């Protein structure tokens, strides 16, 4: 557990002990702010049946004919986004690290753009550019869906690039590449059998972060008239009483799962790296 430099400083800073009461107080009050909405939502989600607490709201939610199609569509979109994003970002980060370092500032700048362009502005631009005759990409539901996935891919760039870039810094890409080359490996082999496996943890965190963001995305899907989870949840809050609470709890659980795995796997990786360093 005591792997990070932070925990080392914690043990050293003794004089702070008298502030401990204040610390607990701050932590307690802020925790209440974060836990009460979750508790309240969970409580509501158990009240689907009159006078009894139970999981009726969840049952109704999963039985809703619109829920599973929306959910599965969002999952497929998320998986497609992750797949495409990996295919694009890994070579880019690799090339930028190894072969085209001059491009790095440009690539880093572009990966910042999703933070600069608000989602609602981006979808505005997408619709105005691609729903008029010269470039009519949004003619059918499915073509819109493809555009949606492509936009998600761009939105995932910041997270994916940062994860992969950190991952590449942690391993010695150059040596690995040269070793593979001197053994006669070709490009595909180097990428898929040397680089990818060494980046497992980085790729997984990038992928899960992307998943957490894409799965319930509302703004872009809404204005592109997609029947995904985000717009579905938004409709649900207006049409049903108890199901939205069950939905919110499910969404929270999904986010929690994604982040939990990232943390868990990430910590494993740090331990591993440190063991290697200790050798």
């Amino acid at each position, binding site marked *: 557990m005591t792997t990070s430099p*932070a925990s080392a400083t914690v043990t050293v800073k003794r004089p702070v002990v008298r502030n401990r009461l204040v610390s607990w107080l701050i932590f307690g009050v802020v925790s209440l702010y974060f836990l009460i909405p979750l508790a309240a939502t969970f409580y509501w989600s158990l009240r689907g049946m009159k006078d009894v607490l139970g999981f009726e709201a969840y049952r109704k939610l999963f039985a809703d004919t619109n829920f599973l199609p929306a959910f599965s569509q969002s999952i497929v979109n998320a998986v497609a986004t992750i797949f495409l994003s990996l295919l694009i970002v890994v070579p880019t980060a690799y090339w930028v690290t190894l072969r085209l370092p001059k491009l790095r500032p440009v690539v880093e700048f572009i990966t910042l753009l999703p933070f600069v362009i608000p989602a609602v502005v981006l979808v505005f631009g997408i619709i105005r550019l691609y729903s008029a005759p010269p470039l009519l990409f949004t003619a059918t539901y499915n073509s819109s869906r493809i555009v949606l996935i492509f936009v998600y891919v761009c939105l995932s760039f910041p997270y994916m690039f940062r994860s992969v870039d950190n991952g590449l810094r942690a391993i010695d890409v150059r040596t690995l590449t040269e070793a593979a080359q001197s053994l006669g490996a070709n490009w595909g082999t180097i990428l898929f059998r040397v680089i990818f496996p060494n980046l497992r943890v980085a790729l997984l965190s990038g992928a899960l972060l992307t998943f957490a963001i894409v799965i319930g995305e509302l703004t872009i899907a*809404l204005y592109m008239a997609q029947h995904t989870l985000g717009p579905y949840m938004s409709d649900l809050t207006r049409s049903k009483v108890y199901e939205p609470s069950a939905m919110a709890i499910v969404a929270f659980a999904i986010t929690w799962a994604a982040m939990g795995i990232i943390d868990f796997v990430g910590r494993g990786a740090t331990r591993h790296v440190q063991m290697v360093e200790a050798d």
Partner: protein
Amino acid sequence: MKPNSSTNSQSVNSTVGGAKRPPRIPIGHWLGVLPFFVFSGLFLIGPTLNLAYRSFEGLDGGLTLNNYRQLASDTVMNAYGMSIKISLTTAILGGLIGFLVAWVVSMGGLPPRFRLITSTFSGVAANFAGVPLASAFVFTLGRVGLVTALFKAFGINLYKSGFSLYSFLGLTLVYLYFQIPLMVLTILPALDGLKREWREAAENLGATQIQYWRYVALPVLTPSILGTMILLFGNAFGAHATAYALTGGLFDLATLLIGRQISGDVLHNPGLGYAVAMGMVIIMAFSILIYSVLQRRSERWLK
């Protein structure tokens, strides 16, 4: 870096083209980054540039600055004003509270396990924006929310005494749910960067704890804190989903105004809609720019 790239480039080319080429940057190398540029060009930069161009188009065609002049109209200014007000408030409050929480869990004497829980939970909560977050607060502080009901049981009617979840105050409360965790996530590493030696040196020179914070720690942390607060500002300013889910898109916010403009030209002038969107991009660009400048400055000490 340099000497090796020539050998690498040759072997790459031999797999791509078969022929040996001079050790300059060959076409093959650009193929690896090409999809990245194509995607961001088509689905990120292109659409935005198109908006930028069309924000200069007048109602009867031709280029004009008229749309930007019309940003001064009440509708737009109210929306921008409220967006900026909420973003500023939640950035400052979220920043302060987030900093306190980060400080408490990293050096406030709590068991180390709390730090781990806090950072994991922050990762979750920072990504828990949108419809589910709005729902959670409706079930808590909405008209029939649990906390509202609790207050009523104690004889306090929140909604009769002026509170509403669908107001500036309510939205601020909701936004803090993802603002505080974002602050915690970005400021924890900065707190870790404070070196033990600095505190020891200060103590050896007879500094009190307050003096250490006033003259050593805070000056080092200030760029990080300010930078992250600006990041929080941008985060709230560009937020759409949460406010949309909470208010049905009818609240006076810049993002919601753009949303209404997309669905049906509520501004009665497409060009003005584009100008509103570009105004947002410009404000966002400024905040991200200041953030990265401050971040770079803070790295001078905290690395």
